[in-house]
């Protein structure tokens, strides 16, 4: 019984963190361009490289 009093808040808290992270990422526009996000992973980070 006692262990539940710790575990339940912990479980809820962890879930809430996940929810908060999702809401934050949504509000900061990370879901605005899903097609673009899928393509951007293919882009090189090297600024020097010649882009053809």
């Amino acid at each position, binding site marked *: *019984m006692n262990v*539940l009093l710790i575990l*339940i808040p912990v*479980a*809820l808290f962890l*879930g*809430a963190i*996940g*929810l908060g992270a*999702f*809401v934050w990422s*949504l*509000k900061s526009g990370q*879901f*605005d*361009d*899903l*097609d*673009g996000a899928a*393509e*951007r*992973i*293919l*882009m*090189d980070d090297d*600024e020097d490289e010649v*882009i*053809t």
Partner: protein
Amino acid sequence: MTQAMTASSKDPYVRLLSDTEAEAELHVPTMHCAACISKVERGMPEFEGVNYARANLSTKRVKVRFNPQLVSLDDVIADFDQVGFKASPFNSEKADVEGDKTAKELLIALAVAGFASANIMLFSVSVWSGGEMAEETRSLFHWISAIIAILAIAYSGRPFFRSALTALKAGGVNMDVPIALAVVLSVIASIYESYRGGELVYFEAGIMLLFFLLIGRYLDQRMRSKASDAAQNLLALKAVPATVIGEDGSQTTVPSEQVETGATVLVQTGMRLPVDGEIIKGVSDIDTSLVTGETVPVKAEVGDKVFAGTLNISAPLHVRVEGRGEDTFLAEIVRLMEVAEQGRSAFVRLADRLARSYAPVVHVLAAATFLGWWWYADDPHMALMRAVAVLIITCPCALGLAVPVVQVVASGRLLSAGILVKSEDGLERMGNVDTVVFDKTGTLTLGEMTLINGADIASRDLLMAAAIGVTSRHPLAQAVANAAGKRRIPMMDSVSEIPGSGLVGELKGKTLKLGSREHVGHVTPDAATGPELWLRIDDAAPIQFRFSDQLRPDAADVVAGLKKSGKRVILVSGDRKETVERVATEAGIDEWYGDRRPDDKIEILEKLKEDGATILMVGDGLNDAPALRAAHVSLSPSSATDVTQTASDFVFQGKSLTAVSEVLTVTHKTRRLVLENFALALGYNVIAVPLAVLGFVTPLVAAIAMSASSIVVTANALRLKMGAAK
């Protein structure tokens, strides 16, 4: 540059952030891969005055920030040209910000509901399975569930509560009323039950209901914003810039809707006319195919009237802008479209129709259960719990998902076939089409000329004609050049174009003339059999080149396929009767009308409607736009004029006409799947409702029934994906 600055400061497309920074959104339709993104995002800031560019691949728009002191929006668009993309300004104020916001709100509500139902389910499952659970533990679990449920429902339920309240205030009932009632009642009853220390609580049922319904709502909203995105991008294309010549001879570029009546506009060779007007300087050929359906360019000189949307082929023209009065061609088209629009609003979506009759049934059932048990068992608490069970069971999780899931899958399948769904209820309206009406030029045919008597022409003459023809933009001259194929075309020593007549040039000491029969001095009065060109080498006899606008390669097959599936196929065109008849015969269409003006086309459609036909109109010209609106549902090729694309419900890409049959197949299947889903959802109710009325539905059963029916409906919708792979 100073002139550019003043132009940009009052530009409707530009938003000033500070004195040295302005922001604009541009529509860049050709952007489609990672390389494109990096070209835009890294290439653009290298230009002078451009600070920042951010591409959005989903909406095909780019946000740019630039220094308005140094450059104008036109310069930025020119920079895009250099990077290799065609950009057009996009008026973000007109954009569907509202729709985007709603979609985001729904997504957050969905996330909260998902989080809450997962956590409450954690407690519920322990209660259901923990047979030897102490009463205090169970009570604790119930109260924790209650707290989560109340908070989550208060937040996630808002879209439903709001809509239910609006409906009630207006004195009506919509689907959201029973939903809101079920959720609120289940929570209140469960709180009371927890307080009494009872076993039956429905916290998870209430929040799960919201979770499933929100999925449906979100998908539906996304369909809507995607459709309106597509429509807005097309509107952006309408912003053709016009070059206005001032009295002092200065040239300024302004959006075409800002050009004033009486101003003089310069139309370069190869450009579409931005305005209606009268030619005051210059002679040229005008390609009116998109406006009137006429395939052969017409000669235009000083004093002739020209219309917006037509293409200037051979020489620059000065055009005096005519009044935007009621008598311009575009105004007439718009007026006809507005009239046609009114006939359309009567359409009610299937889901709404169902909801209208379903909601009262749910209320009556729940009320009857409550009163019945109260009277029979004299236990208001037990009666209330059973009524809540009825409300939860009847609540349309599966019904809410039935339509949006199918439509999302359908539009995905159409998109992969190159067909864009532009209106949100187009899929549904297309479902029971029985008559297909085609336009001719550019729809059934390719809208471009092909040489048809190539076999009768000596290869040397063809090469000569190609040599001189390749230098012109005139579609017939281009067709001659294309007919020469991959063979090496000799280079002309000199060429000059006489607008409206033809070309004259020198090649290895020979004088070549290519053009109309008057141009080459051919006077034999034989009847012309369609579009033609004549070639004369020095003083030799002139040689005739004949052309026709070829059918799309698969037009005949598509028409045959449509007929086979029992559709009535009709051809209506603004072109001359003989041409229309020939095309109708080639395509295998028995019913055709030629020489029809835009209002005649509408009349034909109205007559068909009166006979009870459900019409799909396929067309591309400006003259088709009103007819596209008047039909039940419409489809345009992506080569169509912007107004036309805006008017139609679907837009298809590519040269193949199979898009027509693909759309019909997919929408037909969509309709069937939607009906199947309704049947599944209602069938589940037929079984579950009696159980709920009799009191056999425990929270566990409700949870299983809800999830199972939603999954079945979704799985059924995914069947549409099968058969798409080729």
